């Protein structure tokens, strides 16, 4: 009986070994084919992926530059928030200091609301027949205050600038926050 069973068992082991090797080869073939197919697929995809990434990076760059630009504006606003007295010096005071005796033809004032309680104050001052260097003194004085006015527009009419006098219209701007 043993003499009969043992060869069968041996044959069975051999068949199992062959089956095992065959299974491994089959698995290897499947994996290799799958790997090759995936590689080809990924190679084909890579160009479109690269294009997609390039676009996304481009978008990100644009958005970041937008963000940086907005941050600059916000930073400028925050600088103003640090100032304790958020009101400019009255322009009439500056006018009297620098252009005493000069007749101001017209003063027009406007106010525009900005953000977070801030407002933009604008004053258009028209002065005739005024020495232009004195006008520049006035502008310099107004701009040198801690909470300054600044020159937004400078118009000279009626007389050549070189003559030193003329009819001048100044648009002065300042920021203000009512707390």
């Amino acid at each position, binding site marked *: 009986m043993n003499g009969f069973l043992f060869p069968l068992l041996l044959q069975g082991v051999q068949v199992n070994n062959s089956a*095992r*090797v065959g299974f*491994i*080869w089959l*698995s*290897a*073939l*499947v*994996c*290799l*084919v*799958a*790997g*090759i197919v*995936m*590689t080809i697929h*990924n190679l084909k995809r890579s160009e479109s*992926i690269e294009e*997609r*990434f390039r676009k*996304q*990076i481009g*978008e*990100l760059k*644009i*958005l*970041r530059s*937008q*963000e940086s630009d*907005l941050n*600059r*504006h*916000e930073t*400028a*606003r925050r*600088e*103003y928030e640090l100032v304790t007295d958020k009101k400019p010096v009255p322009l009439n005071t500056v006018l009297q200091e620098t252009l005493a005796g000069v007749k101001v033809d017209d003063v027009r004032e406007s106010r525009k609301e*900005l*953000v977070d309680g801030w407002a*933009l104050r604008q004053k258009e001052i028209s002065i005739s027949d005024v020495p*232009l260097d004195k006008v*520049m003194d006035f*502008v*310099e004085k107004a*701009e040198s205050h801690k909470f*300054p006015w*600044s*020159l*937004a*527009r*400078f*118009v*000279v*009419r009626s007389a*050549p*600038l*070189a003559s030193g006098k003329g009819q001048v219209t100044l*648009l002065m*701007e300042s*920021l203000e926050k009512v707390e």
Partner: protein
Amino acid sequence: MRWMLRATKVNFMIECRGAVKWVGSCYGVDLQAGKPVIVRAERTRGRVNCFPVAESDPSFANMLKSGRAIVAGSLTAGESLSCWLETPFTSWNKSLKVLPTLLDVQLPFALEDCAYDFIPAGEAKRTVSQGGEILRPEKVMALAVAARFVDVRKKIDTFKISGMDPVVLDQEGLALWSQSLFEVPVVPGGEHAPRVVIYLGSDRVTVAIGRGVDFISAHGVGGQPNAGQIARLLKAQLETPKGKTEADVSWLWAGPGVVNSDFQAKLQQSLCVDWPGASVVHDQPETFLARAVATRAITDGPLRCNLRSGVLQHDMITRRAETEHVRTASLCLAAGILLCAANITWGMMVNHRGSLLDNAVNDIKDKLAGFHVAAKGENGIKIVREAIGPRKELLKPFLRRFEPSLADKVVVLADLAKKNDLRYETFSLSREKVSVGGTAGGWKKCEMLLDALKQMGYAVKMDRKESLADERISFSVITAGGASE
């Protein structure tokens, strides 16, 4: 046939793989009238050292008992045969398909009853003469070795009587030939000289004949041959078409019959009458064959073979072949898995990177806009711009405070007028626009004003015309857009 497939085939090189190359040591056994002569061969850093081992050696006995002893033996020249076959092909792979048929024709018994092996010939440019005929080197030459299964079984049984189960059964003639060349190489100038290795055993004599390093044939000539028998063999194998040998024969002797025996000297003397030449007795001739089979089993070299093949193949060889099969298959499987894993990993990395970018873009869009922006690409950027545009506009006055004063530009333009004979009749300057009209002392002086305004960042255009009355050039400069911010 497995070792044939492993032999390197470049230009039909001789190198063949040892039958049990993967082990570092084995026992070589030469059965002399049933009594074994045993050596242990150990391979260290490419060199093989052989040590005689007594049959009663306890460590050898233990190794045999535990089944760890790897034993190499041989089939005698009388129990096996070797013959040269010429194929019509120049490719070894093609030749392998026809060699069994060519061998079958040569055998006096059926090929199915044999264990056989084919060994590739030497370099194609060498010639081997057989029976006086010079064979052309272009075609594949193979040395076939064969033995009947019944003889192989008998040999295995003989070994088993001594408690040994040989893993390798070499062919005696080839073993003698290659070991002789290894221990006593061909002298320079003797590449074509006849060479004869004679093994004097206690129950047999084997003669291996060749020319230079080329093996021709091996023959068993009985227990006590005379010179005449050997001389006839030489005549058949070595005589040229002209009927003469061209050079002295190199005689090499081995085997237990060489030690303390007159027989070898007398035989030598008789043979040198017709076949003169130098005679050399190999060192330790009694263990020569045992050394030969052991060395050949564990090293690569010429003319390697194992006649314990086919259905009689030793389990160790079978398992090794299966292990190598499994290893090769496993390597391929590992390569396949690695390739798949690499691709999957790449895909995951790409997706991850894509997600990171997507998230970064979405986060910044949502943060800037103040609400979730679902649109992608140009549309998304447009929505963000429209969302932050109004706020930026309202914050611009804050930023202007940190820009250079407009008054500085006025002063620069006024100085320019003084230095370059420019008379401004109308002058209007704001951050975005400029409008200047007047006259200039020369055509090029107008350009000074234009350059200065451009440097300040205004995109301006100028009109000029000759004035007939006072030769001054009247000009007007207007901005096309605002000052660049």
